[in-house]
């Protein structure tokens, strides 16, 4: 069998198997360890004689390091060394880079950028010394720190179809709006941390990463060593959300220091350093132009976005990604422009593109539906294209209509008032909003090894990571289902770069891609078992350790070991593939103060086969919580005179707290997508955020009649525009 997935697998094998664990809402096998503090995270490994490194951040936004006053700090108690090595990372690696990012910390590209590493016997000594280290700079005085004040240029050729300007002119109804979103930080619970330990030429690095096969290459390239001499261990990760796709400052500086000192070195970023030095999601400006006819059929869609990054970075937040395939309209213009600013590297943050693109598109769709006088659900359903606009490709599967309808029924959409300012409870305006969810589906190259042990147990092995998302659970379920083995006899080993290279966690592709590799390895084992039983593989029935009612152990004189592989193939090119859903939000807006509180949310999602109903639901819940943050609170605020980030901790950068998050209902729509993967599953990891904030924005409008075009929708933006609280 070819590794690449070229033709849809119509067998739906996971519906024929007998074990009955696939899709079940099983607990994560490592969950209890994490809840009890027994899962060892990167910084927690206890290595003998480990020295402690603390990074020193630049106190300028752009320029060069002229002098580091080493001597006075080297004399401090416990201080072992100060590094300002050319190999140290100036920027962290972008996702799937697979090579060293920009190095050499004698140049300063952004405020807070690491310029040195101080290593001492204790963490306290290293921290004191790092704070005491004086650095002289040559400051670049004309650097650009303000996205509103720089020039933009096209990041790619605009995607144009027909004549949008004319469609706007001739439309029965049209809107032309410009929205803004602020920069975001992933703010994962576990800060980035590395412990480097050399054994001769071999480096073992305990770190917190999402994609080990790329991270090994990035680390080896940065250090100038062979890949085979680098091993990364990352079994448990306290959240990534894109921020751990590529290696960061901690990994390389720890490895350099450990090599020099001949002893292990630990480097942990402070919370402030995570905010200041780890990839941000670019702020965006987005112009939405929508045109439709009298029947509410879209005739034109324009989505143009302006984003920023550091000079020489290839990444540009792909804001219009979902707009390409989501709605109809024969006249189209999608364009992305980039401006260069000296702010932290912009890169992938959970659902790059859709997270901020969909929330704006969906807010604009709400305005368009209102202008056309059509219910916003009906308006969306009326504008789903039969095939990918401009390219004529079919959709692999698309549960959007079902999600809108099922969600609406469960949420009670029929209770919504069409006009705003119709429902008031005490001081609060109450409103409802809806938005579509969409996120591209990607199958990524992956490899996994499955062992059916002679004792009847199963071992699944891959360098796949588990960010807390459920990889351990899901990969075990796939193997248990395919091999007819009870789940408690299925072991899963992940997060070790010496294991077969999985897809890694990112782009919502981990479960389906590495899961497909596990599936294929299991297929090979099933073929062997069928052969041993002298039956056709279609006649094989595996359940509870029995193969066609014989104990499978009777067939095994030794372990059966198979490696499964998958690569994206023709199905990726021949179809438009995405996961879909719908969000419903009931928001309360204080008529006096403009404070918005979410009262309830419903999300309905279709993403192919559900591999584990509990972990899938958790992904959707988490995404919707992010949607609340994106809609209402989250913003990186920079001082545009210096490029200094002023909201660099969790007190100032407002992620939602428990009280901001109401009861959220998640509806998982069963679906089989044979085009997407042999599992008939698509990605779900990021789907829950893609559009969620749009539903909130639309609920705010329905509540109080104010259309804001600026996220997050904080009280300061609403207060001046609210209707009279008493007179209304």
């Amino acid at each position: 069998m070819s590794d690449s997935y070229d033709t849809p697998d119509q067998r739906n094998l996971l519906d024929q198997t007998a074990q009955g664990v696939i899709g079940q809402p099983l607990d994560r096998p490592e969950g209890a360890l994490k809840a009890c503090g027994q899962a060892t995270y990167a910084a927690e490994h206890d290595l003998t004689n480990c020295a402690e490194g603390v990074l020193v951040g630049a106190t300028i936004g752009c320029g060069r390091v002229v002098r580091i006053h080493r001597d006075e700090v080297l004399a401090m108690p416990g201080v072992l060394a100060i590094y300002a090595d050319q190999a140290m990372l100036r920027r962290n690696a972008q996702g799937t880079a697979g090579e060293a990012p920009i190095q050499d910390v004698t140049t300063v590209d952004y405020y807070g950028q690491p310029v040195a590493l101080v290593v001492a016997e204790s963490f306290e000594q290293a921290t004191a010394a790092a704070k005491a280290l004086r650095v002289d700079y040559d400051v670049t005085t004309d650097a650009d720190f303000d996205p509103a004040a720089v020039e933009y240029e096209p990041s790619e050729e605009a995607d144009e179809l027909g004549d949008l300007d004319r469609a706007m002119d001739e439309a029965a109804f049209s809107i032309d709006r410009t929205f803004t979103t602020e920069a975001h930080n992933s703010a994962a619970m576990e800060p980035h941390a590395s412990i480097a330990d050399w054994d001769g030429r071999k480096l073992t690095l305990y770190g917190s990463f999402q994609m080990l096969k790329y991270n090994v290459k990035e680390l080896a390239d940065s250090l100038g060593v062979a890949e085979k001499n680098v091993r990364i261990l990352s079994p448990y990760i306290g959240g990534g959300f894109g921020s751990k796709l590529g290696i960061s400052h901690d990994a390389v500086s720890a490895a350099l220091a450990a090599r020099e000192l001949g002893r292990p070195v630990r480097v942990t970023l402070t919370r402030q350093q995570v905010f200041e030095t780890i990839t941000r999601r670019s702020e965006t400006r987005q112009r939405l132009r929508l045109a439709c006819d009298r029947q509410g059929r879209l005739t034109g869609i324009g989505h143009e976005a302006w984003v920023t990054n550091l000079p020489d970075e290839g990444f540009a937040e792909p804001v219009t990604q979902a707009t390409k395939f989501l709605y109809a309209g024969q006249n189209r213009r999608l364009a992305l422009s980039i401006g260069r600013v000296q702010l932290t590297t912009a890169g992938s943050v959970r659902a790059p593109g859709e997270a901020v693109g969909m929330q704006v598109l969906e807010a604009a769709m709400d305005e368009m539906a209102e202008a056309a006088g059509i219910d916003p659900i009906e308006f969306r359903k009326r504008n789903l294209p039969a095939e990918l606009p401009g390219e004529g490709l079919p959709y692999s599967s698309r549960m959007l209509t079902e999600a809108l309808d099922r969600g609406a029924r469960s949420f009670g959409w029929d209770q919504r008032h069409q006009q705003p300012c119709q429902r008031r409870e005490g001081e609060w305006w109450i409103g409802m909003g809806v938005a579509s969810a969409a996120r591209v589906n990607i199958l990524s190259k992956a490899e996994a090894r499955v062992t059916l042990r002679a004792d009847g147990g199963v071992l699944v092995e891959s360098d796949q990571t588990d960010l807390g998302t459920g990889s351990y659970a899901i990969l075990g379920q796939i193997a248990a289902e395919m091999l007819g083995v009870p789940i408690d006899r299925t072991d899963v080993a992940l997060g070790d770069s010496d294991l077969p290279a999985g897809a890694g966690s990112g782009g919502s592709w981990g479960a389906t891609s590495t899961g497909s590799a596990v599936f294929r390895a299991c297929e090979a084992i099933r073929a062997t078992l069928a052969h041993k039983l002298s039956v056709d593989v279609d006649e094989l029935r595996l359940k509870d350790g029995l193969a066609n009612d014989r104990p499978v152990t009777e067939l095994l004189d030794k372990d059966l070991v198979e490696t499964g592989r998958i690569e994206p193939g023709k199905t990726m090119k021949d179809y438009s593939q995405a996961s879909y859903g719908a969000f419903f939000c009931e928001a309360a807006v204080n008529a006096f103060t403009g404070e918005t509180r979410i009262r309830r949310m419903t999300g309905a999602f279709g993403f192919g086969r559900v591999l584990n109903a509990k972990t899938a639901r958790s992904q959707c819940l988490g995404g919707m919580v992010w949607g609340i943050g994106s809609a209402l609170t989250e913003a990186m605020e920079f001082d545009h005179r210096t490029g200094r980030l002023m909201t660099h901790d969790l007190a100032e950068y407002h992620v939602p707290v428990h009280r901001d998050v109401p009861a959220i209902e998640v509806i998982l729509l069963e679906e089989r997508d044979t085009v997407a993967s042999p599992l008939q599953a698509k990605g779900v990891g990021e789907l829950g955020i893609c559009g969620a904030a749009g539903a909130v924005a639309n609920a705010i409008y329905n509540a109080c009649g104010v259309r804001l075009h600026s996220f997050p929708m904080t009280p300061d933006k609403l207060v001046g525009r609210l209707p009279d609280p008493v007179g209304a």
Partner: protein
Amino acid sequence: MRPFDYRRMADLQPVDQPGDRLIAGGTNLLDLMKLDVEAPRRLLDISRAGQDRITEHEGGLRIGALVTNADCAADPRIRADYPLLAKAILAGASPQLRNKATTGGNLCQRTRCQYFMATDTRCNKRQPGSGCDALQGVNRNHAILGTSEACIATYPGDMAVALTALDATVEVLGQGGTRLIPVAEFHRLPGDDPARDNVLRDDEVITGVTLPEPVAGRQIYRKIRDRSSYAFALVSVGAVIKLREDRIARVALAFGGLAHKPWRDPQTEAILTGQPPSPALFDQAADALLAKAKGRGGNDFKIALARRALAAVLTEATEE
């Protein structure tokens, strides 16, 4: 971190050497030490030095300086007679922090101005004479009343706003004995000396807070913030309002988030007193409150927000 000495104190005594700092709950001081904003030579730990009771006092209550925020907010007498205080405390921080934070310490809470907390920026409060980066910088949550060109920081706390509306008194022990300071006069405006948050002298320690005899009326604490918990006030209002025969017989209003101190404006209260409540009256009161308000860009919205916050509180307090 910098090395420092530590001594546990058996009694609540003023500090006697430069470089000494008292520490109780440490919920603010330890953060500032980690940020290098505070660098005491020695910490004198008063958390076991008594003064941790709430007692009857001249018809009111006396709250010992070391009563925790959690205990104070849970006290049945506070909840019954001074609900404004309990509500204000519970609107602040998180349960974990309130378990540690103390009454005296909370009065001394320092500003949350991001420039004050960043030693690589200019701040006249942290480093007198260095300048103020907040004036032209990120100043969304900065003061609009009583500011100076030297400082636009706010006092960030909630408890003191309630105490100000309740006419509480701070009891202070110094070398020369005890003195009493009305809470409304405890914090000060920045003027050209923003380094000093309050009128406490270097050789004084807060021993307690006294609340006068309870007064009749509705007590309201309204805190407006970006998220529903664990965020500092954009604007907060503590109010005690007594209606008689459809008129406002008595009103006390204190505001948080607007100034370097909990803000109380006699003129605003005078406009309301004796009048029948109406939106027009509330507007008139807001005009007086905000007559001298000055936005600095990011915080311009606070002028409108304070007006609406006042209207919300007065509406709630005067409803049937």
